[in-house]
Structure formats: structure tokens, C-alpha cells
């Protein structure tokens, strides 16, 4: 059994306040518990990680030293900003492994994540952290995490290197694919334009299709899929193409095409209020009684058992 809990569901920046109390204002953080084998995995260290850390101090620490793994989808700030506020890092007994993708021209993961802890930004320096923290670069691949847990990773379409995660455990599949948008043919397709090059245009078409295919296969058959749905299609098309996020319509279409059982729409636009979510839910949410997937907007504090 996997227990998946949302500690942060927003994109871009935390947005606390009266209008976001119901769906939550913290940025990306998802916890998976594998109770049968006593393992915990955290995906992303957005501001939601602070609350999770506080919970772990009360719930896990009394049972023994904290040991956990954090898998970062990527290193944009909204996905790492919670790390300095994750209380367990200040305990000498804590052991944490941090995994994530880093592109070749960038610094190491340790510098990017730990670099938030320099006096310029923060009163505690990374070197002063008491916990044992290790960092490892992650790429596309399939990994045996032990205890019967398998992880497959897949590059997504975002302005920096970004990974989707697919965990398989006891025949169940939990999958994330956020901070991604549909691959597009980036080359000029207007044959009247001076820029036009037939070869580039055709190849762009083929590769975009192939990449979308590959991403869809990656999420196929998931029991729970957490997918980027920052925008409505109406918001996406006129101004947000190329920003690295998807529309709700696209997320839903993928889940339908690929027999996903439950779809959590995720990485919400910060300006979206609870009232707007309730209206959108009336349009997009599904119970899953019919033949399609169950569809819902991810909510901070929401828990799903697989």
C-alpha cells in the first residue's frame, strides 16, 4: 500500500490567505509512505515541506531518527524553497538523500539546493546543518529502490531539465508529471516565411509527436497521476505557450487516452481562488464511476491510498 499526501499543490509562489485556504497556498510537496516497509519518499521541497517537516518531528522522531529521500522534479525555486525550513535537517540524527536533475551548464545539486543557505539569504549556512545529507544527480532511467519499490524517471518539457517520477509498488503505480507542457514543433511551419526550412519543419513535427507519445506512455495506466494543470486551455493558448506548463484540458485528455485511474490536477496557478476552483471543479472534476478516470484538483492535506 502507498499513501500519497499533498503538502503543497501550488505553482510558482506560495499564496497564503483567505481565498486559498481550502485548496492550499504552499508550493509543490508530495509525500509517499510505504507503511509495510517503513519507508517514506518526498517529491519536491516546495514551501509545503515545512509543514511536513513539522509533522515528522511530532510523528516520526519519537519512534527513532528520521531517514528520508527527497526527489526533486527540478530546481526551480518553487520546488526547493522549503528545504531550509525542513526542521529535520537541523537534527544530527537525521539522514536525507536528495535526488534531482541538473543540466550540464549548471552547478551541482548540492550548490543549487544548499546554496539557499548562505548568510546572504538565510541565517544558517549549509555547512552548519547537523543532519547527514547526500546529493545525487538523477537522469532518465529505471531504478530499483529496494523493498520492492521501482522508480522510473522521464524528462519533461520545461525550460530547464525536469523529471517526472513513476513509482511502482505492490502492483500499484503512482506517477507525477508536472512542470511540463506538450512538446511542440518549435520550427517555423509557414512555407511562405523567409525562415522556413522544410527539413526542420518536418523533423520538428515528427520529434514533437514522438516525445508526446513517450511522455504519455510514461504515465499510462497509473493508479494515481499528478499532472501539471496550471492553466485552462483558454489561458494557455493565447499567452502561456512555452512557459513549461500544461492546460487542464490537456492533462485530462492524456489521462483518458492512457487509462489512468485517478488524475490529480496539480501545480495550480497562484492567483486561482478557492471560489474559482469550485467553479472549475464543476466543469472538470469527475467521480470516475463511468469509464473515464476520477478527476480532481489536488488539495493541500488531501490523502489518497493506493
Amino acid at each position, binding site marked *: 500500500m502507498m499513501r500519497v499526501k499533498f503538502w503543497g499543490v501550488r505553482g510558482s509562489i506560495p499564496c497564503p490567505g483567505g481565498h486559498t485556504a481550502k485548496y492550499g497556498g504552499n508550493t509543490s510537496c508530495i509525500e509517499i509512505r510505504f507503511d509495510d516497509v517503513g519507508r517514506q519518499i518526498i517529491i519536491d521541497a516546495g514551501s509545503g515541506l515545512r509543514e511536513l517537516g513539522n509533522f515528522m518531528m511530532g510523528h516520526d522522531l519519537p519512534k527513532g531518527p528520521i531517514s528520508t529521500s527527497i526527489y526533486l522534479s527540478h530546481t526551480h525555486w518553487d520546488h526547493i524553497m522549503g528545504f531550509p525550513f525542513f526542521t529535520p535537517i537541523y537534527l544530527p540524527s537525521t539522514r536525507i538523500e536528495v535526488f534531482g536533475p541538473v*543540466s*550540464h*551548464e549548471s552547478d551541482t545539486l548540492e550548490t543549487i539546493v544548499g546554496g539557499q543557505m548562505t548568510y546572504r539569504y538565510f541565517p544558517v549556512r549549509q555547512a552548519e546543518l547537523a543532519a547527514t545529507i547526500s546529493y545525487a544527480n538523477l*537522469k*532518465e*532511467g529505471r531504478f530499483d529502490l529496494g523493498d520492492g519499490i521501482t522508480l522510473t524517471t522521464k*524528462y519533461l*518539457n*520545461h*525550460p*530547464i*531539465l525536469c523529471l517526472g517520477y513513476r513509482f511502482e509498488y505492490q502492483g500499484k503505480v503512482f506517477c507525477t508529471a508536472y512542470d511540463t507542457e506538450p*512538446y*511542440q*514543433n*518549435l*520550427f*517555423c511551419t509557414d512555407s511562405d516565411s523567409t*525562415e*522556413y*526550412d*522544410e*527539413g*526542420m519543419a*518536418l*523533423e*520538428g*513535427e*515528427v*520529434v*514533437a509527436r514522438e*516525445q508526446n507519445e513517450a511522455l504519455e506512455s510514461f504515465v499510462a495506466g497509473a493508479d494515481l497521476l499528478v499532472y501539471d494543470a496550471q492553466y485552462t486551455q483558454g489561458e494557455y493558448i493565447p499567452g502561456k505557450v512555452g512557459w513549461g506548463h500544461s492546460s487542464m484540458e490537456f492533462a485530462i485528455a492524456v489521462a483518458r487516452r492512457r487509462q489512468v485511474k485517478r488524475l490529480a490536477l496539480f501545480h495550480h496557478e497562484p492567483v486561482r481562488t478557492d471560489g474559482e476552483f469550485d467553479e472549475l471543479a464543476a466543469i472538470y472534476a469527475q467521480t470516475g464511476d463511468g469509464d473515464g478516470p476520477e478527476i480532481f484538483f489536488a488539495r493541500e492535506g488531501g490523502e489518497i491510498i493506493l
Partner: protein
Amino acid sequence: MESSDHLTHVIQAYIDRMPSLSTTVNKVLEVCNSPKTSANDLNRVISLDPVLTGHVLKLINSAYYSLPNQVSSLARAIIMLGLNTVKNLALSTAVIGALGKKSCFTALSMDAFWAHSICVGVTAKALAAANNVAGSERDEYFVAGMLHDLGKIPLNKCFAAEYAQALQLAALEQGSLLRSEQLLVGIDHGMAGRLIGEKWRLAPSIVDSLAFHHAPEQAPADSRTLVATVALANLYANIYEIGSAGDTFPEAPFLMSILEMMDLKWTDLAPLHAIVRMELDKAQVFLKLTE
């Protein structure tokens, strides 16, 4: 002459700091530094420099990304990794280009080498089109043609005196440069090209065209059509003297055997002339070359 192990070692040590051609560096910096660069411009500017193209493909196929399938075209890399990533790859690579002064090209003329490379790239692509290769695969032909003579760069740089002699000998004998390279340097540009391709982990088809473009019949069956196309494009560039990479005297029997392999007649190549000239002009305008 030195032992071939030693020669290999000298060349391998040089490969990773191999400079871009200064012909294109300024334009690369301009295009990659602009926030408004289009995918078309980015692809074009990188693909106009054989060394830069090789370096970028090398990084994309490297352990940093460890992609499951080898990427042999820039267009594919741009869609998969995004404009930003490829721009940054090119920028970080083009910095090496600062070393690529024209003086590095002691025996070969860099501008003539560049024109030869691009002519072979464009011709290979046009031949692929004439042979009904799918549009989305023609870029690979272009890349293979553009890169085919990369092996000459380390030879020319690491063994400048010997290489100058090899070029002279080939000119004197009106014979094969490959043979005089073997004779006077001890390693030819096909062998050096293979070292580059393998060190940079370029796609096997590209490595084959670096290694076998003077003997396509020896290329593995999978890549033989591509290699033969590049070989023919190379002969075309040499016969019509578009640019120069030192191979000025193609052997007639070799030409006949490739035409046979490709089921073509020499007259089939004449219509390519207009396309090749146009592409070369476009590239020159794009790079704002003055001469």
C-alpha cells in the same frame, strides 16, 4: 614517423579542446545571447559550424543527459531539450571557439574548409531528397556531410609540418590526400575522424561517415547509404571546387563505383548546382561574411 599509439594519443588529447571555426563564432554568440532567438536561427547557426555541431551533439549524447537513444540531429535536440538548453550548450561550447584563431589552420585555409564542409552538408541533404529519404531524416544527412572532414582539424593542428607536406604531396601527385596523410603523418583523416566521433559519442551513422567517406563500401550495412551519399557529395564539392579541404583530386574509378552504388549518373548531379549555390549564399548572408 611516430608510432600510431602515440599519434592517437596526441590527437585524443586535442579533441576535447578542439576550437570552433572562427568563421561562425561571432554569429553563434550573437544568436545564442539573444533572448528572442527562434528555433530556426538556433539550428542554423549551430549547424553551420562542424566543430560546434559535433560538440553540441556530444554534450547531448553525454552522461549528463544519458538519453536512451542517440541524438543525431540538432532539430531533434532542440525539441527534446528546449531552446534554452541547446542555446546554453552552444554558448558554453563556443567559448572554446575563442581559441580558434585562423592561425590555427596552418596548412588548410579555414574559410575554404568551412565552405567545403557546408557544401558537402548541403549536397548530401539535396541528394537525400532526390533519393526520397523522408524529410525528417534529411537533417542527419546534412550533419553527416557537414562533419565528414572533422578528422583533418586535429591532423592539421597537431602535426602542422607533416600535414603541410601531405597536402603538397597530394597536390604534386594529383592523387589521394588520404594516402599522403598515411604516408607522411602516419594516420589519415578517416581514422582521426573516427577517434573524434567515438570520443564525442556521436551517433554511429555519423561516426561511419567520418571514418568511411573515402571507402563507403567498407561502412556497416546500416549506414552505407548515408556514407555513400556523403562520399558522393564530397566528390561533387571537390570536382566543382566549392571550398577546399585539400582533397582536390578525386579518383575517377572511385566516383564511378559510388555512382553505381547509389544508382545515379553524373548528369543527375548537375541540377544540384543551383541548390548548393543558393544554400551557400544563404549561409554566407546569415553569417554576414564579408568575403
